[in-house]
């Protein structure tokens, strides 16, 4: 419980913090395929990230989490995709930057960690050199100076015997160590924003906890803002100051961590929390999954996309599009939210 209080204080600090570092405004990503209807993967997302804040993007597969992060980083292929809206980073719209300006910022001011640590490392280059490469690229360091910093970084992310590990190839490392190495690479230039796209999904549960603690510590230490993309509510509970729940490309609920977990208002958030197995429940008790799958979605343009799977669905849910409305410090997109328990 003592841990929880420390979280509350960081989220307080973040709340009273300065101007937002990142403002995502009405971000919309459309995939265009020849001979097919354009598919709207991200449908008008707004959120802010303040310096030092940890923001979660939560949702099931295909809800647009990863596409949002790739759009912020400018990594979506130009062909066949349309990205609209604004991504203001420190006041600059990243979507309007030229390719080379954006390249200068990537790795330097914003960095990203990917899901699979083995395939995200270059298999033919020693890990130390991969850390050094970023430093040489953005800080203009010599190979020698960069290797010194690379050693420090490996040490900092808790890789034992960093001198030897500098020369190791990715395949010589364990899964957890590879993810640590990736974190070292991402944080080498001390970016102001780190996007972690399901950083623990490919890892063993025990290693997951280590990596999350590491991320939490590093983020607090360096004041880096973190966007945590995950489908795992456990990760969110341990790490995020603010949580955005995504469904079918739109934010359906946004709240600070404690209110969200104590009293989820959107039926989808509620369903996600209900579907987590609980230890205190007796034997033989069944899990409460959310019925149906993403394939049952209605288009947001004419209804609530979640309505076909929603236990609280009303007539109006299938006829009108709910708007994201503020309600006691939380944003909610629902006609018939879960009642507040008294």
């Amino acid at each position, binding site marked *: 419980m003592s841990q929880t209080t420390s979280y509350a204080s960081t989220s307080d600090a973040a709340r009273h913090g300065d101007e937002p570092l990142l403002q995502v405004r009405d971000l919309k990503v459309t995939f265009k395929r020849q001979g097919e209807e354009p598919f709207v993967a991200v449908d008008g997302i707004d959120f802010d990230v303040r310096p030092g804040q940890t923001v979660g993007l939560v949702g099931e597969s295909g809800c647009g989490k990863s596409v949002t992060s790739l759009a912020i980083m400018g990594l979506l292929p130009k062909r066949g995709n349309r990205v609209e809206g604004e991504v203001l980073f420190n006041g600059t719209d990243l979507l309007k930057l030229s390719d080379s300006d954006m390249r200068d910022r990537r*790795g330097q001011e914003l960095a990203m960690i990917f899901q699979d640590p083995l395939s995200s490392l*270059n298999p033919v280059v020693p890990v130390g050199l991969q850390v050094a490469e970023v430093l040489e690229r953005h800080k203009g360091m010599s190979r020698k100076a960069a290797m010194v910093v690379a050693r420090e970084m490996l040490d900092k992310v808790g890789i034992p015997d960093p001198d030897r590990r500098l020369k190791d*190839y990715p395949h010589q490392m364990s899964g957890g160590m590879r993810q640590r190495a990736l974190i070292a690479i991402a944080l080498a230039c001390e970016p102001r924003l780190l996007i972690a796209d399901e950083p623990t999904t490919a890892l063993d549960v025990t290693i997951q906890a280590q990596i999350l603690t590491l991320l939490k510590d590093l983020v607090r230490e360096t004041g880096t803002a973190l966007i945590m993309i995950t489908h795992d509510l456990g990760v969110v509970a341990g790490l995020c100051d603010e949580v955005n729940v995504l469904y079918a490309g739109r934010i359906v609920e946004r709240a600070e961590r404690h209110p969200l977990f104590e009293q989820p208002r959107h039926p989808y958030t509620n369903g996600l929390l209900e579907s987590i197995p609980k230890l205190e429940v007796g034997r033989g008790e069944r899990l409460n999954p959310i019925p149906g799958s993403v394939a049952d979605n209605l288009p947001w343009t004419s209804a609530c996309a979640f309505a076909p799977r929603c236990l609280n669905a009303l007539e109006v849910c299938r006829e009108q599009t709910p708007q994201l409305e503020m309600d006691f410090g939380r944003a909610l997109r629902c006609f018939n939210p879960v009642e507040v328990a008294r």
Partner: protein
Amino acid sequence: MTPSPDRRRFGDSKKDRIDALAQTAGSTAGGAQGGTVMTVADAGRVSGGEGQSLIASAWKRLRRNPVFLTGAAITFVFIVLAIIGPWIAPYDPVAQPLLSQVRRQTNPVPGPQPGFPLGGDDVGRDLLSRLLVGGRQTLIVGVLATLGGLFGGLTLGTLAGAIGGWVDSLVMRIVDVMLSIPGLILAVSIAAIAASPSQTTVIIAIAVVQIPIFARLLRGSMLAQRASDHVLAARALGVKPHAIVFRHMLPNSLGPVIVQATLVLATAIIEAAGLSFLGLGNPDDRQPEWGQMLGQAQNYVSDYPHLAIYPALCIIVVALGFTLMGESLREALDPKSRR
């Protein structure tokens, strides 16, 4: 992978075979991903132990593979002979110690005799010496032609795979046109364009024939690399495009190309012999070369077949050596054949 290179049918086109081979490069990444499942399972062990690289495990299997060992032994002996040949040859390949025995009508080719185990050729030169020395020219032609093809193929393949778009289409259509012409005919046409045939024209002709194979192979594995996670991760770090191509994509795409190069060495030697046989090789026989010796033996092949058989055997054995080595390398490096 439907047309597996192992079970390739007779009707498969050259293109399909190259593409199938290129896919093995893509599946190197796939195999590596399969490996993650294992590492996740033992991720609890922080020390992790020594991982086994693709090359290390390939070598472990190659060491005990008789096919590879045979190929490697032949190749090794051939290379050693090509280097020391002139020193161990009993006679100067240009000297004509048996000239006095040559009779245009009765005895055009001196037979084997003490001191000359294989006898002489039609101008009285020692056949054994010429075979021993000829290996060097054959090796030079094979290696230079392969390197030339490799260089051209790497350039075109990198252009196509790295830039993509219309450059890719243009390069690959050119490559398709080249692939559609049978190799030897293309080589003959190129060699015939040259005013006077020489060693260099043979090398160039054969190199050009090999270019499309390498280009297509490299382009295929470059495309697989371009879609890979580590290239995306490198882009996310702001690595510049040329560094992504040369530091991240190219080194990871070279595996199948190098394997193909050992196979192409064999083809290049055979095609060089073919060109020499057709009279498009080096006409200067003061530097003996197996293909050229084979070509000159044509006049006597009905009465003195051994003149043709010895150089032909040399070519066959050497080509077999390179092929055995290349095929077992390819198998060893193909993650699908790993047990």
